[in-house]
């Protein structure tokens, strides 16, 4: 076969480019400083493993080194963007790791319905009801739909009707407040799981109406823009989305109320503006994930208590109830086991509200 000059140049180019690429990347990976954390994944990145013969023989060293090479790869986030681009645009996959983009919004495809998880949370709620609550308590529960509920029918959705039905049938001695009709997709952040506080007036009205405290919320709210916000899904799915903004609904009642944190033993404002500097700005609402908080409103003349068992969605909703109660206790049983509550919380004569998102209900193993 006649050897073409251009074939020679092609061969030289391929050979040099390949050796150059893999060698330069090797050098860059060795030389560059390791990153501590991944903002996109909200976790620490793997460090270079400690060398030991035991780890070498049991394979742990290999696993840790492999993880390290991937976590610390140079320009890692850019390479991940390339993968996302290829999967979504070339292969036209509908989701990546069950995340998809819809009208400029990133949505998690929470599917299928985990019936065992629903039964688990029902058991936990009934146990709390049985152990801590009595006739002096008016007990309610509500379910917050996740964004996938509102998305196009072409995506897979869990059976939300079955979820509600299971909970309605199995939860004992408590009233269901259905807020599904109060919400639509625009009420949620584009890049985060959570809902926007500025859109929750209708949810607050529904719940307060059903719980008979709507007439105690008379002061109007003022909407204040706080900061741009890149939610939890930013960086998980490398696509272009609309920009989120954190806004708060505030008034004199909220400004004058304080939040006591049982973990830190400190008081904070309801909207902790120091969290603007944190990795997750949604933590502005009630300072983020904590096991036990109390909102104290000294402006209420007749003491009235509300106890809320909640997940993170409650952080932005519950401040809207502040005016109606002298004391609102927020309990997140992902961070505190319910057996400790008898020493920390007085349940007598309190209104009780269980408020969980479908995401937590469908993955309730984290509840203690």
């Amino acid at each position, binding site marked *: 076969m006649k050897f*073409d000059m*251009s*074939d*020679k*140049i*092609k*061969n*030289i*180019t*391929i*050979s040099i*480019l*390949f*050796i150059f*690429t*893999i*060698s330069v*990347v*090797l050098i860059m*990976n060795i030389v560059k400083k390791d990153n501590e*954390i991944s903002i*996109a*994944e*909200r*976790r*620490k990145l793997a460090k270079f493993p400690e060398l030991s013969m035991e780890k*070498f*023989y049991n*394979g742990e060293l*290999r696993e840790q*080194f*492999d*993880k390290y*090479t*991937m*976590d610390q*790869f140079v320009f*890692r986030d850019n*390479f*991940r963007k*390339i*993968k996302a681009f*290829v999967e979504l645009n*070339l*292969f*036209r*996959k*509908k*989701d990546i*790791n069950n995340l998809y983009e819809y009208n400029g919004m990133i949505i998690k495809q929470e599917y*299928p319905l985990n019936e065992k998880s629903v039964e688990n949370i029902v058991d936990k709620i009934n146990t709390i009801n049985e152990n801590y609550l009595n006739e002096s308590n008016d007990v309610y529960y509500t379910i917050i739909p996740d964004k996938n509920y509102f998305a196009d029918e*072409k*995506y*897979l959705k869990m059976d939300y009707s079955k979820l509600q039905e299971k909970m309605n049938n199995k939860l004992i001695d408590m009233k269901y407040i259905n807020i599904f009709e109060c919400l639509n997709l625009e009420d949620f952040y584009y890049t985060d*799981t959570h809902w926007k506080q500025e859109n929750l007036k209708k949810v607050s009205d529904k719940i307060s109406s059903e719980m008979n405290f709507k007439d105690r919320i008379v002061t109007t709210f003022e909407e204040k823009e706080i900061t741009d916000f890149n939610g939890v899904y930013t960086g*998980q799915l490398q696509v272009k989305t609309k920009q989120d903004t954190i806004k708060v609904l505030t008034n004199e009642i909220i400004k004058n109320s304080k939040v006591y944190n049982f973990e830190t033993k400190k008081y904070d404002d309801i909207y902790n503006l120091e969290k603007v500097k944190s*990795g*997750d700005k949604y933590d502005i609402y009630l300072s*983020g*994930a904590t096991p036990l908080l109390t909102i104290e409103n000294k402006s209420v003349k007749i003491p009235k208590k509300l106890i809320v068992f909640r997940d993170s969605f409650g952080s932005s909703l519950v401040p809207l109830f502040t005016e109606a109660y002298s004391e609102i206790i927020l309990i997140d049983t992902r961070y505190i086991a319910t057996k400790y509550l008898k020493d920390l919380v007085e349940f007598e004569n309190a209104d009780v509200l269980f408020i969980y998102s479908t995401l937590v209900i469908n993955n309730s193993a984290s509840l203690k």
Partner: protein
Amino acid sequence: MVFSSISFIYYFLPCVIILYYIIPKKFSNLILLISSICFYVYGEPVYIFLMISTTLVVYFCSLFIDRYRDKKIKKLIYILGLSIPIGSLFVFKYLDFITVNINTLFQTKLQVLELALPIGISFYTFQLLSYIIDVYKGNVKVQKSFIKLATYVSLFPQLIAGPIVRYQTIEEELDNREHSLENFAYGVTRFVIGLAKKVLIANSLGQFCNIFLTINEKSVIFYWIYGISYSLQIYYDFSAYSDMAIGLGRIFGFHFLENFNYPYISKSITEFWRRWHISLGSWFKDYVYIPLGGNRKGKFILLRNIFIVWLLTGIWHGANWTFITWGLMFGGLLTIEKFLIKDKLDKVPNVFRRIYVLFFIMISFIIFNSPDMNTAINHIIGLFGVNGEKLINGETIYYLRSYFIIIVAAIIGSTPLINMCVKKIKEHKNIKKIKNVMEPIFIIAMLIIVTGYLVDNSFNPFLYFRF
């Protein structure tokens, strides 16, 4: 270590290539041997000694066989040289399977050893066996250098996933191989294409198959798409590893034989096995089928030989009744083709012949991928709606839409269509020049995309900051 990993591509490979090409040629085999041992130890720190010791036994036995060619003791040493590798393969891969079945059958309580399967044992054992058999028969000269023999056995391009390289294939190249830009560039191209096949296609199809296996809401169509997808996945996975092995071999001057030749265009099962895992099929033909008499000793012996070969072929893939069934199924189909339908099959239009082949291949791979025969049967009858599932459902439509392009690309890529187009392009001088410009760009683009996929493998997000 696997080829499709950051640690191999961006840590191990550049070091080995640079070392190999800067160190004097007389140390080439030593560099490859040390690299291959490091490669193996990385994934298998304990059983490296098994591979080395088995190689040593075969090395010494072969030397003795060569030394005592005219003596009766030659046969004894030959049997020893065969028994040790076969014995170690049996103990690590098959002993527990035999034990469990004896316990089930005879209600005994024999101890199950639960030994981990050493990586690559099926491949290097067969390579050692082919070497000692060829030495015994006088087909190859005995290799007096242990380093060269060990290099052949442990050569990292083909150590863990084949192809099964016969010693005679690279006998001369162990002593004297050509290093050229053409070889190097061909090797790089072949390696990167194999990498792309594995990471972009095979792994994606694997995700789809996993979805099928874990999802509760199946449908009849979902069973069919699973069968097709798994057949494609295993082809891409296996042929990709062969591509990468051949490519890596070429980078270091070795010419391995092709292991796959578009098996899914076959018009008969007989033809399929001339195109699929060629190195395994030819190994069993040359070292089992022909020595047993092949087709030269009458019909009964032929049927026996077919049964033995396909039983062993099934068993070679794994210690499970599914693999044995898979192997025997092909034995049965080949027997039927050979004795009952050969003339009739030749008269059937090609399209129907291909449908017949693809259908049974799909069924065989459904069995192959099942953890047990009950699951295999369930999946097969699911194809025909016997499980009571709907013809199609929302989940099937969703996942079919999500993986449609990958599946179609995989189907097209499994045919010679792309290769034919490339050949046509090469015939036109001007287009060939453009191709020569595009090819390096394509190779690096593939490498970059594959790197994106590999780096994303450690993606593990949390809702809340974990520190």
